[in-house]
């Protein structure tokens, strides 16, 4: 079975995130890391590969330095990494990114495409749906348990009220939640072995992606202005002298919340 995992390099959790006021884009100059739920997707891919055989390819669209984060997936055990990187792709929104990934996936022809549920920077949680739509593949999201039997996947999907169990024929697209597994640590052997695994950085042209359908040219959204969130107003700070609970109840009652 051939599994492709689509991942994203995001600012490391310890980096203070800021929007660049001139480009309106997220400042990505600080330390980068693999998006947290993508680690769950990689882990799930590795488990499926180990159970069913095949290979795990990591795919990403991003700046050249994103390969540093893709290498973590290789250190965990993935077989190879492909990074589509091109100055013309900078500023791609969801629509443009989904075009780039779908085109690149079209060439890979995987049986299963895995995504993390959402990225920790943009938090869109829809990219997988757009990619599945472009590929005309069935899609299951928010998956907390995944099994594959024959040519069919079964995903236990977390919802607000419980679980949906959804089956779909392969090839398909699945977005996993962080409840699906505990991602492994890469071992030192894995880290040192990752160096010699195939790591391809390809341009838009190499990947067969039309330049005018990605980047700002291919994006359907425009960021008109960015501003810091308004300061939180109406804050009350309580020092607990034993009456805090009472004061909280009073406050909520006053706001007609209880």
């Amino acid at each position: 079975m051939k599994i492709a995992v689509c991942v994203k390099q995001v600012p490391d959790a310890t980096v203070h995130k800021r929007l660049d006021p001139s480009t309106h884009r997220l400042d990505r100059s600080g330390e980068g890391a693999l998006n947290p739920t993508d680690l769950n997707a990689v882990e799930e891919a590795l488990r499926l590969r180990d159970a069913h055989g095949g290979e795990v390819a990591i795919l990403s669209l991003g700046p050249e330095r994103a390969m540093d984060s893709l290498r973590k997936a290789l250190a965990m055990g993935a077989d190879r990494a492909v990074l589509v990187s091109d100055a013309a792709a900078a500023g791609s929104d969801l629509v443009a990114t989904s075009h780039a990934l779908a085109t690149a996936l079209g060439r890979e022809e995987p049986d299963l495409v895995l995504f993390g549920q959402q990225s920790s920077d943009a938090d869109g949680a829809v990219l997988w749906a757009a990619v599945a739509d472009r590929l005309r593949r069935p899609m299951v999201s928010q998956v907390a348990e995944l099994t594959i039997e024959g040519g069919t996947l079964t995903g236990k999907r977390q919802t607000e009220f419980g679980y949906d169990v959804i089956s779909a024929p392969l090839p398909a697209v699945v977005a996993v939640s962080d409840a699906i597994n505990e991602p492994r640590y890469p071992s030192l052997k894995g880290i040192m072995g990752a160096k010699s695994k195939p790591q391809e950085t390809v341009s838009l042209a190499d990947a067969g992606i039309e330049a005018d359908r990605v980047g700002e040219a291919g994006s359907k959204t425009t960021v008109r202005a960015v501003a810091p969130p308004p300061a939180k107003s109406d804050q009350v700070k309580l020092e607990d002298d034993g009456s805090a609970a009472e004061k909280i109840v009073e406050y909520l009652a006053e706001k007609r919340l209880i």
Partner: protein
Amino acid sequence: MDFALTNEQREIQALAREFAESEIAPHAGDWDREHRFPREVFAKLGELGLMGVCVPEELAGAGADFVSYVLVLEELSRADAGVGVTVAVHTSAATLPIVTFGTEEQKQLFVPPLARGEVLGAFALTEPGSGSDAGSLRTTAVREGDGWRISGTKQWCTNGSHASTFVVFARTDPGTEGARGVSAFLLDADHVEVTREEEKLGLHSSSTADLRLDGALVPFDRLLHEERKGFAVAMATLDGGRIGIAAQAVGIAQAALDTASAYAVEREQFGSRIADFQAIRFKLADMATEIAAARQLTLRAAWLKQAGLPHGAEGAMAKLFASRVAVRTSQEAIQVLGGYGYTREFPAERFYRDAKITEIYEGTSEIQRIVIARQLLRGL
């Protein structure tokens, strides 16, 4: 000149940091209070390759360089200095001397289980009457039949209660006083009797034991390196080991700064964050500067060792400086936290208790100065 870590070094550092932050730091306070040796952590570290970072791959190590090893020690010590010293002694005081001085048979027999973290290693040099003057040790090894009969007592043996392989130093030549009559041996746990676990000021998650060697008989092939060359083994081991302790000190200092900074932006007095007072800002700035200097000295010494260049004095400088920084920084962290810093509710007092030993073991600060001065004045 290049100060950048390689990709591989950064990734190994990131792994150690991630593991330490999730699996060690959350428990360090409890282990300290309960004086608990977290054996299970070393098994996990072993699975990841962190119990044999700079041990060659053909001996089941990870085959990374000494700089990577030092980066790992800093991260582990930042989470728990007791875990840091356990790994440091296991790796550079027990495993590496076998890698460096062992016969092919000794390497194949002892190193792989150590490098995989299946068993722990210890180093037994110090005795009740011989500390800084290590050459005066009185444990004896006497030829008898097919081997050596070893008798004596050892003190403050890190990992002593949990180790399976011990590098033990004994006098094989009773006629020669001082360092030249000493040889090194590889002993099993069966050969040594743990007589007592030490009560310490800090490092409560690590084991420090007194040992008795009650006429243990070991075959000739347990001699490490040549007869009467034991002191060369000890000194080479300590030259490298000091760099590891310097890294431990940097880790403790960094943890102290992290705690002080986090507290300073939370704590409000006189209507503003104490981080906005210059008195606190200057403390934090000094701490950060000293830590950066200590880290650079440590990494330089590690780089020299990796490059096969002389590193005795540089390692001593790193340890001398970094240990001082660890003590000063943890002391200042307590000051930033004020009354809270003096309580067990916050980890600053643990860092302070853990820091002090770095000025003492693997050669006291005074011994480091002797090493540095000897190098400095050589040939003048």
